[in-house]
């Protein structure tokens, strides 16, 4: 510490310096908000599984969906977008979504939570508009439509709609965000003309279904299901993961997680198409978790080795043990959906549900441990310069 730290103004300046220079310090609180929402959402998940854990008198079970999709994933996606755009106001989105969902979970009065989530979505939409003005691309428009789906979901929530009413829109937010990115990467395989149009048509079916789900939920979900199914088929056939799965290290890990996710996206598409707004609790569980856990969470696991370093500016070296949480996630879904939901077996449904939560906790632990270990190694002076290469 320099001598400046000994007087008050110097100390403040030193802190400001640190905050401006160290992305980890500025962004970690936002990540912590998202992870807190994740923990609350996981607890709500245990309540929804009918397990006798404390908290039955709270709204956590009802808020499980918004906590996981907007509180956790919405906050992280908002943070990722703000980092990409590099405009300070962009960070208002993850701040508002994290605080908004936690406020709702804490029982904040009126529409305080949903209002903050509406604001967060509006900021995200504005960010995509700014990107569009800089460089108009189809993939940015698709991702922007995802932000619009979040905005529509938050507005429905604000007007007092039940979570089940806007769940398709929450799914739309995440799917469009992810598929927009896959559309962008399709350029690296030279996919143009008819093949690219086919994916855009599948996306249009999903968007049409989401819009229809607002006035006519059942028909909208079925149409969106066709969109999900065709996107899954396209991604399985043409996505870059089909090539990179032959790579090694983190490249192969990411590709396997992506391809496994596409399989669950297809399962979700079939379930949405065949059952629409199912009154059957088990089918409803399968429709949502094939998509949110099988597809979306697998994407999160896949991209963490890249996104965590990008957002927090820390190193996250790939570890083969990452396959443990990935394998557990997908195994848990086989047990939950095939063994539990579709076979009406409550025990397998619960076991699969709990195992899915354990997979997420293992993912957090493995990621955190890898980051800490990398920091320790880089702080050892005798190790010299860090080696290059990401794989």
């Amino acid at each position: 510490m320099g001598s400046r730290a000994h007087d008050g103004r110097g100390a403040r300046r030193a802190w400001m310096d640190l905050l401006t220079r160290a992305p980890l310090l500025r962004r970690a609180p936002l990540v912590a908000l998202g992870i807190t929402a994740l923990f609350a959402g996981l607890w709500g998940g245990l309540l929804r599984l009918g397990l006798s854990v404390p908290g039955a008198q709270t709204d956590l079970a009802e808020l499980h969906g918004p906590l996981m999709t907007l509180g956790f994933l919405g906050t992280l996606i908002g943070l990722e977008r703000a980092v990409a755009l590099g405009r300070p106001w962009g960070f208002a989105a993850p701040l508002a979504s994290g605080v908004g969902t936690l406020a709702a979970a804490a029982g904040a009065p009126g529409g305080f939570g949903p209002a903050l989530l509406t604001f967060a979505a509006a900021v995200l939409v504005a960010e995509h508009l700014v990107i569009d003005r800089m460089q108009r691309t189809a993939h940015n428009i698709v991702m922007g439509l995802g932000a619009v789906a979040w905005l529509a979901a938050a507005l429905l929530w604000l007007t007092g709609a039940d979570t089940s009413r806007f769940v398709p829109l929450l799914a739309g937010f995440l799917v469009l965000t992810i598929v927009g990115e896959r559309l962008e990467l399709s350029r690296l395989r030279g996919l143009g003309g008819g093949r690219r149009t086919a994916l855009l048509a599948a996306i249009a079916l999903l968007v049409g279904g989401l819009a229809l789900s607002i006035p006519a939920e059942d028909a909208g979900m079925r149409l969106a299901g066709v969109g999900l199914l065709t996107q899954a088929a396209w991604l399985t056939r043409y996505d870059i993961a089909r090539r990179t799965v032959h790579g090694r290290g983190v490249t192969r890990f990411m590709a396997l997680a992506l391809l496994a996710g596409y399989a669950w996206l297809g399962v979700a598409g079939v379930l949405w198409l065949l059952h629409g707004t199912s009154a059957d609790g088990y089918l409803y569980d399968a429709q949502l978790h094939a998509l949110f856990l099988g597809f979306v969470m697998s994407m999160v696991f896949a991209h963490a080795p890249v996104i965590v370093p990008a957002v927090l500016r820390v190193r996250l070296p790939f570890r083969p043990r990452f396959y443990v949480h990935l394998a557990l996630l997908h195994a848990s879904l086989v047990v939950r959906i095939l063994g539990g939901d579709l076979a009406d077996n409550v025990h397998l449904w619960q076991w699969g549900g709990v195992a899915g939560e354990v997979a997420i906790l293992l993912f957090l632990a493995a990621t955190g441990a890898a980051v800490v270990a990398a920091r320790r190694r880089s702080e050892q002076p005798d190790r010299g310069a860090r080696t290059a290469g990401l794989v």
Partner: protein
Amino acid sequence: MDPTQLLTTPLSTGLVYELLLDVIDPELGVNIVDLGLVYEVQIDGRDVEVVMTLTTQGCPLGGFIEDEIVDCLAQSPQIGRVKVTLVWEPPWDPERMTDAARDELGWIS
């Protein structure tokens, strides 16, 4: 590059490009040079500036790639300070990829 060679090769844009072959996009398994992301390398004494782009403006990986480039070039004792400048003009285009990158990623059309 062989470590002995690394110590003895004089600093040049060629050396920097060769070192940057070690900076690999983790999802693609292809280095940033073959992806056509590096537009220019400038050398001023021992200091190096890498002018590069990303495949799209909405990509959050800028800081990550910057860190990787700095770490990578730090291997070379001939190099002093490293600056990475992200530019968006001209926009990246798949045509900038080398044949090696296209083969690796299974170029279709």
